[in-house]
């Protein structure tokens, strides 16, 4: 039985007891009062009657006559006339109508009608005495009705007090709901902190749980930060904050090959031609400082381009990968102009190169192509390197047609890749979307058509179309299927509502959906993402982070969202076979993930030999070309 109900019963009993005893006391005092009144009335009437008799009656007949008239006109139960020797001379008695009052009530609250007595005499001669008793049924009636009125009043009062009590209990126990929620969240390893309420006991509990949650979060944060350091120590150049050459090449390859991001873009090279002279002239330390400033400026110049990768390929050479960019001339112009603003930039001699890449381009071929087109630049002008400018595969008009037709004819399809757990068990199926366009006859990956869909404001429709496909596939195959959600699906309120509406229509399938959300969305729009998780969790679907890489250090921030899994980017996974650091990193990430109640899944596993090792390190699932 719930606490509220128990308290309710107690309050009810207390009110009942209070009302009952108050009622009894009240009726008792009324009963006493009525008895007194009856007694006085009997006495006074007897005296008055005796006085009259003493004045006018000279014989028993007159006495009886007067007695009769008093009895017939008054409200008496019995009048007796006793002779001087106490003998009953005459009496009048009324067979009293029983009052309209329950017998138990009369038994419980009897009203004694004590007779009034008075002596009568004629002259000096005693005639005896009269005894007179009033009918108590009026008193009973009055007592009964006042008891009923009292009961009504008390009932109303009791209801009122009960209602007030209920409101008060509700208010007092409101924090209890939050305590329960917090405890349940803790059981699900979501570490929520909530404001402590005013009620002392609840406050103590919530404060204790808050401390626990806070300590766990700090612990997780520290561990994640430590791992992030471990990860970045070897990957990042100390002076520029850019990735070291090897790491840049790995990330760039991953970016170019990744299906879900834009398969086209730019590779830029920037070289300081006179670094050796610079070292000699201003000293190595100053030169390093200048390079640091340059790196900052480059980032600032390109900050509008999301998803850019920066690398220091050699002492004097920098590489920048800009996915989704086509106009190399504009970007280089912008970069150069911005580098000229660096203090002492006049000391620098820079040369630039740029080349476009497409899906399946080879990074090393791209880099050597760039090397060859390296062109020097001076303060006044930038001689643009000649390089194969990107030819967009389709014009904007064509894309619009492709997408409209695809939406209309349901040309989106899902490619299915399994995600395996321990012992080759089945976890779910990853399903990146493909577009088999009847317009151009090509099969397009998400990374290719999504940027155009975004530009034309069709992302919402595309995502909904893919979701509908997925739900249909789940229904057909009965497998858990995982799809990717983009920025709009997570952050656009209207779209989220439509997604929820669609999932509510097929609830059983909805519970078999897994939603991958990119780490940029989750960490750069934390409020929108939290709101999204909050709203989708009741539907039973699972939500996780995919391509987790740069933000591993912030993993602990996801604690309260009720996520189900994280997918680690292939860059974290691919060297696990031969790098101790990568192994330590994965082991640590698994510990954090499990503490937060998350499944940890490795993406892009390309060596089947790595699979047993990954499970040994604590991962819960693997996917990639080596997993079938």
């Amino acid at each position: 039985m719930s606490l509220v109900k128990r308290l309710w019963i107690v309050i009810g009993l207390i009110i009942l007891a209070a009302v009952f005893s108050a009622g009894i006391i009240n009726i008792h005092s009324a009963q006493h009062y009525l008895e007194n009144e009856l007694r006085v009335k009997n006495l006074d009437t007897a005296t008055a009657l005796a006085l009259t008799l003493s004045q006018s009656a000279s014989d028993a007949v007159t006495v009886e006559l007067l007695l009769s008239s008093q009895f017939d006109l008054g409200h008496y139960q019995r009048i007796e006339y006793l002779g001087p020797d106490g003998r009953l001379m005459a009496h009048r008695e009324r067979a009293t109508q029983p009052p309209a009052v329950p017998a138990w009530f009369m038994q419980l609250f009897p009203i004694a009608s004590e007779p009034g007595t008075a002596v009568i005499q004629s002259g000096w001669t005693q005639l005896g005495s009269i005894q007179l008793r009033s009918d108590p049924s009026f008193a009973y009636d009055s007592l009964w009705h006042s008891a009923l009125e009292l009961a009504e009043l008390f009932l109303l009062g009791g209801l009122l007090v009960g209602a007030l009590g209920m409101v008060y209990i509700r208010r007092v126990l409101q924090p209890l709901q939050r305590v329960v929620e917090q405890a349940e969240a803790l059981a699900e390893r979501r570490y929520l902190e909530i404001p402590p309420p005013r009620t002392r006991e609840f406050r103590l509990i919530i404060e204790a749980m808050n401390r626990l949650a806070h300590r766990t979060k700090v612990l997780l944060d520290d561990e994640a930060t430590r791992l992030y350091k471990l990860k970045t120590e070897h990957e990042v150049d100390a002076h520029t904050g850019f990735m070291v050459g090897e790491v840049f090449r790995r990330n760039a390859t991953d970016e170019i090959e990744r299906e879900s991001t834009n398969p086209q873009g730019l590779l830029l090279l920037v070289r300081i031609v006179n670094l050796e002279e610079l070292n000699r002239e201003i000293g190595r330390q100053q030169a390093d400082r200048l390079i640091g400033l340059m790196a900052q400026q480059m980032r600032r110049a390109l900050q509008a381009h999301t998803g850019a990768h920066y690398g220091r390929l050699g002492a004097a050479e920098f590489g920048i990968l800009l996915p989704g960019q086509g106009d190399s001339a504009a970007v280089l112009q912008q970069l150069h102009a911005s580098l000229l603003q660096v203090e002492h930039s006049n000391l620098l001699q820079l040369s630039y190169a740029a080349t476009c890449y497409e899906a399946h381009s080879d990074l090393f071929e791209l880099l050597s192509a760039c090397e060859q087109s390296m062109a020097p630049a001076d303060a006044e002008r930038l001689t643009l390197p000649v390089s194969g400018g990107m030819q967009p595969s389709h014009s904007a008009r064509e894309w619009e047609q492709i997408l409209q037709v695809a939406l209309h004819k349901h040309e989106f399809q899902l490619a299915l890749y399994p995600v395996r757990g321990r012992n080759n068990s089945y976890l779910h199926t990853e399903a990146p979307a493909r577009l088999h366009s009847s317009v151009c006859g090509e099969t397009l990956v998400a990374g290719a058509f999504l940027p155009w869909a975004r530009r034309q404001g069709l992302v919402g429709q595309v995502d909904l179309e893919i979701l509908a496909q997925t739900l249909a596939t789940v229904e057909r195959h009965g497998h858990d299927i995982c799809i990717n959600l983009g920025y709009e699906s997570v952050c656009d309120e209207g779209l989220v509502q439509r997604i929820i509406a669609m999932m509510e229509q097929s609830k059983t399938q909805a519970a078999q959906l897994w939603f991958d959300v990119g780490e940029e969305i989750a960490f750069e729009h934390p409020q929108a993402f939290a709101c999204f998780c909050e709203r989708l969790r009741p539907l039973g679907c699972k939500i996780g982070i995919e391509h987790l890489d740069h933000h591993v250090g912030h993993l602990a921030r996801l604690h309260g969202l009720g996520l189900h899994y994280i997918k680690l980017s292939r860059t974290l996974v691919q060297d696990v076979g031969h790098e101790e650091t990568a192994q330590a990193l994965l082991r640590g990430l698994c510990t954090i993930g499990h503490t937060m109640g998350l499944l940890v899944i490795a993406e892009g596993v390309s060596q089947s030999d790595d699979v047993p090792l990954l499970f040994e390190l604590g991962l819960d699932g693997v996917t990639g070309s080596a997993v079938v």
Partner: protein
Amino acid sequence: MFGWYRSCAVKWVWVIVLSLLVLAGMAATNLDRLQQLALNRYGTEVARLVGEWRAMLPSAQAPNELDKLERINNFFNRRIRWVEDAVLWQQDDYWASLLETLAKGAGDCEDFAIAKYVSLVLAGVPENKLRLTYVRMQRRPHAEPEAHMILAYYAAPSGEPLILDNFDPDIKPAAQRPDLTPVYAFNATQLWFRGPNPSSSDPTVRISRWRDVLARLQAEHTL
């Protein structure tokens, strides 16, 4: 439920009865306490008078009621002065208790009648032989009639009473008092004042002069 209630009620009734018995014991006739009260309240002079009154009071066991009547009638007629209420109590009409009358050494006709009545009851005369009687008194022919109260003693219920009056010091049968016309008679038997209820706490007591004086007599341990 009502069984429980009733057993509780029975318990309470016992408690009340016991405490009433204690109260009744406190208020019962106790002439030593009356004398002590007189001493405390009015001083030695009054206490002495109460002592004299007690010495005069015939024993309840004595058989001769006429003798009792004589002694008590004489005692009050001699020792108490007749003074109007308006002078004595600054009230229109005040019925004084025995102790109050003795303390003042004065009283009007009701006070005489009450004092004699109480004394006779204490001396063992049954109450149903006594009547406090309102009478119409005409002392001389053609004079204004006066309202008066006397104590009547009925040796037998259907006989002629003896009159104890403060104006006429002798006890005479009613036939020898043509100046008195009875109007109404009463005594304490009809007032159930010796019930278990403590009369002074009963609000209705104060309404009637007779019950008021009875309550005071009880409180002063006289009845």
